[in-house]
């Protein structure tokens, strides 16, 4: 009898585990709820206001895409360094954080089509006279946000002549540029323009050198990152991006922040 009970118990336990394992998968396919990882330290795309509110282009786009998909959304702020590992660890289902679509990242995650594409540029202190060339940059220090396309670019193209200083957030990099700890900064041109140059902090600084869009480093623009197994969610986001491009909602959000269309070509 005791033996029998143990077998029945084991069977029940197994059945319970099966249900537990399959239930969320069935639920997840409907995508009624989507949790979205965002950054919060990358103005004007995402930042946190004094009252703790998430604001910015990425944030508005995230809410708009959710509305278009018809899902209930929750935004989860996450440091850039751990933003892909946290997606893989299922802390959220998608990343909308100005993440460029690159080959290296595609090994780990799937991407939607791009939702914007802007070039990278250097910024320097006015009158510092730093010029952008192998010789002009020799011995200079350049600040960049760690683990970004800009990090790859500066390391790959100028890593042998400049000192690269890497920061966890773009905001920290701005602090050190203002403090004079780095001679130059490289980042997304729009982020620099709106998040730095047009602020009080950024008065006295200017762009220098060309606009960089080399797909080898900068990929195809910024997309929504999603776990590879969630191909259905990629399709949903692609549809939603197409829809808001067509129905003018994208333009409304775009015009709130920028005086030109940052979607690119």
């Amino acid at each position, binding site marked *: 009898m005791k033996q029998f009970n143990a077998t029945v118990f084991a069977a029940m336990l197994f059945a319970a585990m099966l249900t537990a394992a399959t239930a969320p998968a069935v639920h997840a396919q409907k995508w009624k709820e989507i949790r979205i990882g965002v950054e919060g330290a990358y103005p004007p795309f995402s930042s946190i206001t004094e009252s703790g509110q998430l604001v910015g282009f990425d944030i508005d786009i995230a809410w708009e895409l959710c509305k278009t998909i018809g899902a209930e959304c929750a935004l989860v702020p996450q440091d850039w*360094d*751990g933003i892909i590992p946290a997606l893989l660890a299922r802390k959220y289902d998608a990343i909308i954080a100005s993440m460029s679509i690159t080959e290296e990242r595609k090994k780990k995650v799937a991407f939607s089509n791009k939702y914007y594409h802007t070039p990278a540029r250097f910024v320097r202190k006015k009158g510092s006279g730093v010029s952008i060339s192998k010789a002009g940059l020799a011995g200079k220090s350049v600040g960049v946000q*760690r683990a970004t396309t800009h990090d790859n670019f500066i390391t790959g193209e100028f890593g042998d002549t400049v000192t690269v200083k890497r920061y966890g957030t773009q905001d920290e990099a701005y*602090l*050190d540029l*203002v403090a004079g700890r780095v001679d130059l900064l490289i980042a997304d041109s729009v982020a620099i323009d709106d998040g730095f140059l047009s602020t009080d902090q950024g008065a006295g600084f200017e762009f220098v050198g060309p606009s960089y869009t080399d797909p080898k480093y900068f990929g195809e623009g910024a997309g929504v990152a999603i776990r590879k197994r969630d191909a259905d969610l990629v399709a949903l986001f692609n549809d939603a991006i197409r829809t808001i491009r067509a129905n003018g909602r994208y333009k409304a959000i775009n015009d709130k922040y920028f005086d030109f269309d940052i979607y690119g070509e």
Partner: protein
Amino acid sequence: MDFTVIIDNLPLYLSGLRVTIELLILALLCGFVLALPLGVAAASRRATVNAFPRGFIYFMRGTPLLAQVYLIYHGFAQFDFLRESMLWAVFKEAYWCALIGFSLNTAGYTAEIIRGAIAQTPRGEIEAARACGMRPGVALRRVILPSALRRALPAYGNEVIFMLHGTVIAGVITLVDLFGAAKIVNSRHFVPFESFIAAGFFYLCLTFLIVWLFKGAERKWHAHLRPRAA
């Protein structure tokens, strides 16, 4: 699990290891030099003498190391007069900011260890020194400090290990120490487990080395406490 990434990035880890060890040793040296007079002064019964060192110890132990280093690195950079002064040559570099922060922090803790050890000196030792005719300064140098520093050894060993673990903060202000190296490897290859466990392994090795060194030191300076060999 893909540890080939770690093997490929071994030079980065090793250069990070060097920065970590360098910062640790320099901070401990500067910290100890500061802590010795501070600890002695803090142990004084005179309020005019012990007020400043006790205030310093209270501040250093009462605020997180991360906050202290941020204050020095980001906080001081806010003041224009500092940025235009000669001192900026020092505060401009993340390395010096980290070293100053670590040294002051470990000085605070070490001074408290020394103060405590001095306070626990058996009265008989001090009385014996006086009876021999030693002036207070001589008694401090010949009797009180040698006795107190011996007693402080195990607690100081702990502080050294805490300081080692505190050096990860260097990785937060752009330095590429062991932890900074792990962050770079993680961000390039998205392998948080492998990159941080590798850093953890190096920290373990360093801790092992420190524990071993202190064991040797205790064997030497606590020899009088061991039971005599038969």
